[in-house]
């Protein structure tokens, strides 16, 4: 494979393009609403109408507005049809035949349309999702036609590994898994580690409930992740990669397997990539339903086929990782950013976003909000823009009460703070975290204490049991929260809960335990009154030693 071959594939793919393209969303969300039938019927209607030479029905990844699925987008009119049923297919094709100059009219009878000018679409800035909903994720030629694998070629032939790391540092990309560690710094550390064999791992164990960005990226644009991993491997000097995916995402696993096979066939993975000295293989490892495996040391134990329990750090994986070798672990979205950075230059990337958080972030918008789906926005955008403008606010005239970010490790941001810019530091200041990108909107009907209990139950179930603060602490905190919800607790229980939160936070072994109290602490900070309303009067008074304070009646 040479650059020439790559260009040829691209040209051939573009030349074979038809005048009109109907892009059918085939991501897991729309598929569960029956988009497979819609696509089949559209293909049948095209064949019946004798339009095979004019119309292409293309399977694409996520078209973002998940709540209105199945979605079909039409080019070149850029119309998006929503809630399409298989019965609509003949109508759409008939409209196309009867339309002026054979073009598809924007409105088709009986088929609803999404407003392409609504803020949900116009406020998005696409880097990670640029190919999502455009290329066919099951066809490598489709990705190559969007300049895919060009960045890898450039890195291999025009840059030294050192240059690649330096460019990454310059871009200012920070890890999208949640903590926001500078990616360039991590790459540099692994590159500097001595020790022959090194590994690259893609963390696709998206365990946060309420987050589905990584799933969408893997389903919509798997080759971008592979290309990103290959560039990273070249930079750090690794020759073996692993993608650790959740078993709950069968479609993502299938598409990754297809993508790896295709890339190997074209010589874009395997030995001698792009006729260079660089070898790189990627294997998929399927998780088995353990949230803690999102933690890097636990993930590595799981890749080795062991129980997924974390270990103390240091030594960090960058020095002592998989099988004791230096290992680079990055999240799916981080890798998906990589090809675009090298294609467009580090300066281009660094110009997007806020001062300390560069680029864009993909959020999975869900919960009590009108438009649910995927949004990619530049860093630093106010939370209000995402939730109110793009999300359309709470449905049925409700009022937004809070926005939860960061899953069970994050916190709830109340309505009053919606003007906070979305970047790592600002969210941290509010006691929440950026997290991997789940954004759940809550309205007035949501009870914050129950939410705290919900997350604590999650952490309790998912605690691996290795360290005591997390194993026993989460159980006790859950019990206390349960008592509060059932109106059986007193102020003393609340004080004990706060004390436990502090202890678990500071003494747990890994991120799961250290952040488990966050949902409680943040709801206590902003919605303390909701806890206090549920408290019962303490029969012994406020003192902690069980001694009634009013034992000696005050006498005049």
């Amino acid at each position: 494979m040479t650059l020439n071959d790559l260009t040829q594939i691209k040209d051939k793919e573009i030349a074979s393009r038809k005048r009109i393209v109907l892009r059918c969303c085939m991501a897991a969300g729309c598929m569960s609403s029956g988009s497979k039938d819609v696509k089949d019927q559209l293909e049948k209607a095209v064949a019946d109408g004798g339009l095979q030479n004019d119309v292409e029905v293309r399977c694409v990844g996520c078209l973002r507005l998940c709540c209105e699925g199945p979605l079909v987008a039409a080019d070149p009119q850029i119309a998006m049809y929503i809630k399409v049923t298989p019965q609509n297919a003949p109508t759409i094709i008939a409209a196309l035949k009867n339309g002026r100059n054979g073009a598809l009219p924007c409105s088709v009878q009986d088929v609803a349309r999404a407003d392409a000018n609504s803020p949900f679409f116009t406020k998005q800035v696409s880097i990670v999702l640029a190919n999502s909903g455009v290329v066919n994720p099951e066809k490598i030629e489709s990705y190559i036609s969007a300049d895919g694998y060009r960045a890898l070629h450039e890195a291999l032939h025009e840059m030294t590994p050192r240059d690649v790391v330096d460019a990454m540092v310059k871009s200012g990309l920070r890890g999208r898994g949640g903590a926001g560690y500078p990616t360039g710094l991590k790459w540099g550390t692994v590159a500097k580690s001595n020790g022959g064999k090194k590994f690259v791992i893609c963390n696709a164990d998206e365990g946060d409930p309420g987050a589905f960005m990584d799933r969408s990226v893997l389903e919509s644009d798997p080759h971008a992740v592979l290309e990103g991993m290959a560039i990273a491997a070249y930079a750090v000097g690794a020759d073996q990669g692993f993608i650790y995916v959740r078993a709950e995402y069968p479609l993502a696993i299938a598409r990754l397997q297809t993508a790896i096979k295709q890339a190997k066939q074209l010589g874009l993975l395997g030995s001698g990539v792009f006729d260079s000295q660089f070898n790189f293989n990627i294997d998929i490892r399927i998780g088995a339903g353990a949230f803690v495996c999102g933690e890097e040391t636990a993930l590595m134990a799981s890749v080795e086929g062991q129980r997924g329990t974390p270990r103390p750090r240091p030594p960090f994986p960058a020095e002592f990782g998989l099988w004791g070798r230096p290992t680079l672990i990055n999240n799916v979205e981080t890798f998906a950013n990589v090809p675009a950075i090298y294609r467009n230059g580090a300066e281009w990337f660094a110009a997007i976003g806020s001062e300390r958080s560069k680029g864009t972030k993909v959020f999975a918008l869900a919960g009590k909000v009108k438009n649910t789906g995927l949004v990619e926005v530049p860093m630093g955008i106010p939370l209000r823009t995402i939730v109110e403008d793009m999300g359309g606010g709470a449905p049925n005239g409700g009022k937004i009460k809070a926005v939860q970010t960061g899953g069970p490790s994050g916190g709830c941001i109340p309505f009053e703070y919606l003007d906070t810019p979305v970047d790592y530091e600002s969210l941290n200041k509010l006691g929440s975290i950026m997290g991997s990108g789940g954004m759940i909107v809550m309205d007035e009907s949501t009870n914050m204490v129950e939410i705290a209990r919900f997350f604590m139950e999650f952490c309790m179930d998912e605690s691996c049991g290795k360290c005591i603060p997390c194993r026993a602490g989460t159980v006790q905190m859950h019990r206390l929260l349960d008592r509060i919800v059932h109106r059986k607790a007193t102020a003393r229980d609340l004080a004990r809960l706060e004390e436990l939160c502090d202890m678990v936070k500071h003494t747990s072994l890994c991120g799961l335990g250290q952040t488990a109290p966050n949902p409680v602490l943040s709801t206590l900070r902003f919605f303390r009154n909701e806890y206090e309303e549920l408290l019962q009067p303490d029969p012994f008074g406020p003192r902690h030693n069980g001694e009634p304070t009013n034992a000696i009646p005050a006498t005049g």
Partner: protein
Amino acid sequence: MLTVASETSRTASSRSRLSAVLQHASGDKRFKILEVHMKKFQFRHDALIEILHKAQELFGYLEDDLLLFIAYKLKLPTSRVYGVATFYHFFTLKPQGQHTCVVCMGTACFVKGSDKVMSAIEKELKIKSGETTADKKVSLLTARCIGACGLAPAVVYDGAVTPRASIDTAVEHIKKWMAS
């Protein structure tokens, strides 16, 4: 002397247990398929989770004999295989019902009332989450998040994700299963 004797008897009993397992395996084609799968991974220890996935896919659940078979073939201690099988939620050591109903309990689904859907199904089936009905017809499970948050609340009936579940539609679906 005593320790040595008990040690010998334990080895003997585990050996006879193993020969029973291997005899069981020889009469079942699925064990052959599993062994071919292990060969594909060159019987590597780090492929244990992949092999357990395949085993569960073939057998529906991980019975004791199956775990002993895997341990023997991979040359791993049985404790290690059992430890991994019990650590991950995805693996089940009990047989499942004819149908499985998985209610997503992710945050988005929870905020949209999946807990109410869950308790309605629990009431209908008269079992708790994680259990199987006495007639082995339906297993009821919860998922931590299936990533269908845009379509919350989601329920998975026999592997098919159903978006926007309500108490009525869920109970109706369950009733259809019970009647069949």
